């Protein structure tokens, strides 16, 4: 009998790519929010509900990332299990307020992505035990790639002086990355893209960028460039290009897969950190409350 691949639905492109990495030819993956799409504010369509209704397995990120997902699953009539990709990942921790931060962007920590891969492989093996060995071997291969990537990033960033490790992006998508590699991320928008910034947020950000000598700031693929252009012109820096936080690019572009996305982002960050002139000597650096924290 002809083998029909499992039909799996992932909520967004990054998760979909991890799913493909483990599932290989035995899993057909649909991502609801596709490349360059913003999952924070996504409006699901009937097509999405249909894909869910026909799915064998549904994967979400969790951690409050896809607020619209529960209603969509209910409406679609999907009866199977919903696998939360980020289940069991390390949460972010705010050392000053001494509490955990609920930040959905857990895939920017490679150690967390290893957990995602474990979760995915386990779910696939349970649903499709015939190919359990296949999934297991693909899992191991991918974990090795992740390990190599992690080593490369650590080495590259360790060559940058700590005071230059400051990056400005549009929204707080890189908090986990910041914790893993000791880089501070500053952003005018919070963890979700749906809020409007206040003038105060912008003033604070511009002053920090000036104080820290940040010369290159980044756009994200999911949003309008206007706000960042304004910040760049005032902080006397340039727009460095696009970094990818919440969605992959189209397959033909720079960040078509998770591994490519991480490499692309890190290369962009490295350039920006090298261009930084560092904190100016006459101003004292104020205490900041850790990467990405907002008041």
């Amino acid at each position, binding site marked *: 009998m002809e083998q029909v691949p499992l039909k799996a639905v992932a909520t967004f492109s990054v998760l979909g790519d991890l799913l493909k990495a483990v599932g290989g030819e035995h899993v057909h993956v649909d991502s609801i929010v596709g490349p360059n799409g913003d999952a924070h504010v996504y409006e699901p369509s009937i097509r999405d509900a249909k894909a869910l209704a026909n799915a064998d397995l549904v994967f979400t990120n969790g951690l409050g990332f896809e607020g619209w997902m529960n209603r969509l699953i209910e409406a679609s009539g999907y009866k199977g299990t919903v696998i939360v990709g980020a289940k069991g990942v390390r949460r972010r921790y705010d050392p000053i307020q001494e509490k955990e931060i609920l930040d959905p962007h857990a895939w920017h920590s490679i150690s967390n992505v290893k957990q995602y891969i474990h979760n995915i492989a386990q779910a696939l093996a349970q649903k499709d035990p015939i190919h359990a060995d296949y999934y297991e071997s693909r899992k191991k291969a991918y974990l090795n790639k992740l390990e190599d990537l992690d080593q490369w990033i650590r080495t590259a960033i360790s060559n940058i002086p700590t005071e230059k490790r400051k990056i400005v992006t549009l929204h707080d998508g890189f908090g986990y990355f910041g914790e893993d590699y000791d880089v501070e991320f500053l952003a005018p928008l919070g963890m979700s893209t749906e809020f409007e910034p206040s003038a105060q947020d912008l003033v604070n950000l511009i002053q920090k960028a000036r104080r820290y000598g940040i010369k290159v700031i980044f756009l994200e693929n999911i949003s309008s460039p*206007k706000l960042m252009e304004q910040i760049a012109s005032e902080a006397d820096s340039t727009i460095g290009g696009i970094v990818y936080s919440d969605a992959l690019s189209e397959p033909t572009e720079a960040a078509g897969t998770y591994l490519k996305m991480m490499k692309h982002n890190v290369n962009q960050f490295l350039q920006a950190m090298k261009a930084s002139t560092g904190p100016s000597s006459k101003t004292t650096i104020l205490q900041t409350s850790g990467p990405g924290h907002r008041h």
Partner: protein
Amino acid sequence: MYDFFFAPFIEHLFLKRAMVACMALALGAGPVGVFLVLRRMSLLGDALSHSILPGVAIGFFISGLSLTVMSLGGFIMGLVVALLAGVVSRVTQLREDASFAGFFLISLALGVTLVSMKGSNVDLLHILFGTILAVNVDALLLVAGVATLTLIVLATIYRPLILECVDPNYFKSVSGAGGYYHIIFLMLVVANLVAAFQTLGTLMALGLMMLPAIGAKFWAKRVWSMILVSFLFASSSGYLGLLISVHAGYPSGPSIILVAGVLYILSLLVGTQGSLRTLRAGKRPASPKIS
């Protein structure tokens, strides 16, 4: 004192631009709002704003993030709806509000269909409209140009426009040109709405057009003074709203509109013309005189 009220605006270019954009909007949208109130068309802006949205979206699909094409798309779409509704209400028995409702709903549905056929995942409102904190030179030129045009055109058609506001039937009997003035006025409304969306960034932009004009009604006896009060309200809402946003950390767009709302409520309570205070004192409310 200086640090609190002025320093942020002098130090930061983005705040300067935001302030200038608010002033320009106040200059153009203020008088337009006053005429909307006088013509009892205060809700028209809301209807028109919905018909502009799909036009902006079409502009975006044609040329990406080009301010010119997006604004032009919005302007054309808003104008088509305004003209169709205007013509229908003047030719047939249908009242203007009803024909507007009909056409703006069609336009909105058309726009939403187009957007979903394109299948974009990106939240369009974020892309299509600016934010007051990200006003660039192009947006400033747009809003300043619209304000200039509005003032020149309004000065030219000021008297007939007022006559037509007060008594369209009398005006029709002495001059056949009433319809043209009305259409020119509708063009100004659409242009100002497009400019407001590109700078203030949300559908709330309408607030800066209507709230100061409605508030001004409680202070001014004449049309020109109503326009003046409306401008003062709108520009001070812009300044105070931005100030609140800088110091208290509230989002800028809503802060500006909320200040305009507070000014309106205050006017309603203690204004000199037909406010709650004057009514309690037993004075008769005076309607705006023609000057």
